């Protein structure tokens, strides 16, 4: 088999799996789960292999139907896309294992199949977004992603999920249309939708039609900003997160919004190049958005009573961190941002999954009801604590390394004010994460005597949690190995 076809096979496998699930309706559900796990495992391994391949041998170009890149659709598998597809596949596998342990909370039994159909299409579209080298193709994948996300949000048949999903549709449609409008303007100026070709002609186009390019970029910032839940456009996120089942909140928060920011990075660095961006002073806009988001996301999170909403707002703040790294438009900045994408992905997944377990078994999502929870569910709360400490930026967790790198990147850009914002934001994180840990482990020990019935949860739910906790700490201890891959990705995106 030709290595070039491997990425396509990944996509096709996801699609095929989504098709097969309804056909297996009459068989035991376990069969579906196992099959899905095999697919995910295969994709994880193959993306890992691709990651090794592109880093050590060569970048893969694949054009569909043999059409020339300017007419057809081109896939590029380079260190950037290979790295993030591997991360996505890995995180998705962990979440998948967890969700197979009966934790798709609040979903009716008959809907399980549908949930997994949506999940695989979701993964397919994310892989597509990362692989493709075509702006319009990206738009199509983005729309697929939006619809499936929205369907997952509203999969629980409850009142408030519908309104949350509706708000999501409205906001995301605005975002998609803005993005498409941007693509149209770029197409108007350059005549291409292929990213590489646009990148080559961009300098000329900017000289000829500067207004086009400026408007296009503004629309794309806003459009992708909405989808990536950058602060003033985060509106859809808290409702969607609290409405969706925990596993899908994890996917939404840890993976989906990151994919949009990766598209954004692609647009910034490959479509436009740094010279134009610097001339337009894009950095200022992005940094202001990031700084405001880092503070305001945390301030709103402090006031939340619902733990999932709180985590949602925390994601908004963390997206601010990532945007800060991206907005610096420098090697160090991107490096820090990419590392934070990975580390936040791990930490947020751990947080949502552990909270999901608690919600599933204790039927409570109020922060105040967490007292003594550490005694009933030591694993869930333990992993929650590790991840929360990571969010605060305590050493030995991956969160600390990302903060360190971000801080250095910020200084490199001579923006000391953002270092201050970074520190204040960390302090705000302390204010809302720490009380939960204290509440869970130290207060109200009435549950202490019920310890015999602790954590009566399936192993498939416990194992991914432990894995996540371990990964967070390993990443905090040995960041250098991952950093090599990330630097390769940054190099490929900036060249």
């Amino acid at each position, binding site marked *: 088999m030709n290595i070039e076809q491997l990425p396509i096979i990944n996509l096709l496998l996801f699609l095929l799996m989504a098709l097969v699930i309804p056909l297996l309706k009459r068989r035991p559900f376990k069969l579906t789960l196992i099959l899905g796990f095999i697919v995910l495992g295969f994709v994880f391994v193959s993306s890992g292999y691709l990651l090794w391949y592109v880093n050590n041998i060569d970048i893969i170009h694949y054009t569909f139907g043999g059409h020339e890149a300017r007419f057809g659709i081109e896939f590029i598998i380079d260190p950037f896309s290979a790295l993030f597809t591997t991360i996505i596949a890995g995180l998705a596998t962990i979440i998948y294992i967890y969700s197979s342990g009966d934790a798709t909370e609040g979903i009716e039994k008959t809907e399980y199949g549908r949930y997994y159909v949506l999940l695989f299409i979701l993964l397919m579209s994310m892989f597509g977004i990362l692989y493709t080298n075509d702006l319009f193709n990206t738009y199509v994948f983005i729309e697929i992603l939006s619809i499936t996300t929205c369907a997952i949000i509203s999969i629980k048949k409850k009142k408030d999920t519908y309104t949350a999903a509706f708000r999501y549709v409205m906001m995301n449609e605005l975002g998609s249309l803005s993005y498409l409008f941007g693509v149209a303007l770029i197409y108007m100026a350059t005549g291409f939708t292929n990213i590489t070709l646009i990148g080559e002609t961009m300098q000329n186009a900017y000289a000829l039609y500067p207004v086009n390019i*400026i408007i296009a970029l503004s629309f794309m910032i806003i459009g992708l900003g909405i989808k990536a839940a950058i602060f003033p456009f985060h509106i859809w996120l808290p409702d969607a997160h609290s409405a969706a089942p925990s596993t899908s909140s994890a996917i939404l928060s840890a993976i989906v919004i990151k994919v949009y920011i990766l598209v954004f990075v692609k647009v910034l660095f490959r479509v436009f190049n740094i010279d134009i961006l610097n001339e337009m002073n894009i950095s200022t806009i992005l940094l202001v958005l990031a700084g405001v988001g880092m503070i305001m996301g945390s301030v709103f999170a402090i006031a939340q009573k619902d733990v999932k909403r709180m985590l949602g707002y925390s994601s908004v703040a963390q997206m601010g961190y990532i945007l800060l790294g991206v907005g610096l438009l420098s090697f160090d900045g991107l490096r820090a941002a990419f590392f934070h994408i990975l580390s936040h992905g791990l930490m947020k997944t751990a947080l949502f999954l552990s909270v999901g377990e608690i919600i599933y078994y204790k039927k409570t999502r109020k922060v105040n009801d967490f007292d003594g929870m550490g005694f009933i569910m030591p694993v869930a709360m333990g992993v929650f604590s590790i991840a929360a400490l990571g969010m605060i930026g305590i050493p030995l967790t991956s969160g600390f390394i990302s903060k360190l790198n971000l801080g250095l990147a910020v200084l490199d850009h001579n923006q000391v004010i953002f270092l201050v914002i970074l520190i204040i934001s960390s302090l705000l994180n302390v*204010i809302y994460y720490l009380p939960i840990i204290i509440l869970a482990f130290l207060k109200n020990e009435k549950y202490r005597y019920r310890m015999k019935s602790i954590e009566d949860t399936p192993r498939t739910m416990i194992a991914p949690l432990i894995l996540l906790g371990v990964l967070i700490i390993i990443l905090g201890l040995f960041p250098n190995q991952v950093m090599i891959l990330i630097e390769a990705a940054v190099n490929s995106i900036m060249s």
Partner: protein
Amino acid sequence: MIKIPRMKIFDSMARSNSYLVGLSLFLLLVFIAFVGNWFGFNLWISNSKFYSQILDSHFIDYISIIIIVIPIIGAIIELVYGDKSIKHRDKSVIYMGFLTLIIVVMIYPVILHRTLELHIPGVFSLGLNLRIDMLGYAVLLLSAFIWFFVMIYAHEYMTKEKKSTRFFFFLSLTYSAVIGAIISGDLLMMFIFFEIMTITSYMLVIHGQNDQSYKAGYNYIIMGLIGGFLILTAIILLYFNIGDLRFESAIEKLEELGNLKYWIMGLLVFGFGIKAGMAPVHVWLPRAHPVAPTPASALLSGVMIKVGAFGIIRAASSYYFPSKDVITSINDPLWSAASHIGAIIIWTGIITMALGVFLALQQANIKKMLAYHSISQMGYIVTGIGVALYLGYEGAMGLTGAMYHIINHALFKSLLFMIAGVIYYHTKELDMYKLGGLWKKLPFTTFTFAVAALGISGIPLFNGYVSKTILHHGIVEAYEMGNHLFFYAELMFIVVSAGTVCSFIKMFYYVFLRKTTNEYKTMVFDYSSLDIAMWSMGLIIILIGLFPSFILKSLIIPILNLTNYDSYFIEHQILHLNVFKSEDLLMTLMIVGIGIIIFFVGKKFNLFHLHLPKWLSIEYLVFFPAYLFMRNLCRLMYGDRCPTDKDDYAKLSEKDVEKIGFIDRFVITSNVFNRKYEQSIIRSDALIYTFFITLILVFMLVKKHLL
């Protein structure tokens, strides 16, 4: 004639613990013998083949990791035994502590010979850097001894507390973190261990698990983390500008940074100062100490706050001192940065000591009083550090005083806390106005208290006198060689010392001497590991007081030789320092006199019961603008129809910061803010979109056309 009742040995481990303490004292003796070169002991060791083999081996470099890991192993074993076998559980902790102590004492000849450095790349992005040099070793040795004694003490003390397994577990982890912080080779490692120490010691502070301890603990951990973030900021700034975080001279690069170097040092001083209990960021300390179990407060005061001071010394004396081969005189401009920083640190130290002693005099709770004295004594240490920096090339006296006082304070303050613990253990009472007449029932404790109190008051022949005299010399030098304004610093120094004397006379009188109706008839007189640990510490206090030059020779002179202070000065002023000069003795006499006068005046006019109004606390004053803003924010947002609950509003206008802290107020305010804006932001989805797209378009197009 006092009738001494027959001793009873309750605790099965008392005997074995006593042997252990005896062994530790033997270790101390070996150490003394080595330093004093009794019977050619020193030469014998230095020339032995075994020793030279050790020096050459690479294995010895890994000793630093080993001493970090040992307490962790102890913690794990301890957890395995848990509540199943209290004896085995405590043994694992104590023996591991003893093992650490042995190793630490044994490596002294090696450290004297060379600095142990260990670098493992690839971890924590910058690599794992550990190093034991003389500066770290002095604090390490001190911590090892005190920790060991406190563990012996804790074994007995904790039998009356709940969940002691958890306590010992975190005690061991904290120990490991403290060792790590002391022997780290770069600022990042130090910070990492510092953070771990904050978190693990938090578990010790809240051990009582009542509302009060939660409040104090929350205060403690928030301030600890804030300190951590300040240090982190400094680390990022340093690493960015210098490119290296190892503790080496960086002043030449720092000189190019202009004012930023003062910012960095300010961040470090405040970051470490929070742990060290420096004013005005000391507020956690008097709250955390009374609620923590006694062993924890003894260690907090004895060791952990010293690690904060050690951090300041370490960072300042490495980064801000010129390297040894560059500098030859005091007039070198490279000293100016250190000098400027030093002046500020001196004043901070002076304010800290004055504030601490002033507040200590008003306290009724013994532990609270001791906590305020810790602040005050940390003021001495900080002042010493300030002098060390301020005088630059000639600042050896300041560093000597600071290091000496770190050692002394650790000894007598942990002993004092242990005594407070014994009092509480027997009487369940900490209010000194309710206690009294304890000397009949606890004669040995009374005696050890007297030793410790004489130590802290700075009476000749006890250890406090030595370091206070050296510090006094340092301040005098500061105003003779530097700015004459430091004359007032000296004045404050005398007043504060007198206050300390008065404070301990007061405690001695109220707790032990005073006749009361309550005779504590049921109190049983027993012998246990509590006493043996305390006696040995008292013994060390007296030994240091009698032979003040021993510590100088064994620990402090090697430290000074590693720094780039004037070697002539070290040779002549410090090596042959005589603290028992008549003028120093007279000064002490005067201090004691003033102290006694203050005590009688205070007692006569009831000044000790004077309490300041609640709003006059530092925390309230510092945050007052923020409080005012928060209180009125609701009105600003809603006008008169402010929907906040009366309850919330009352909380926001509370003047007592001990009840409602800054964080609580902030959370309430953010709730108000959230209620007002969250839903309205969510509702106006498309409006925000329109607004921002217009804003960005206008911004970019206008900018384009203007250019």
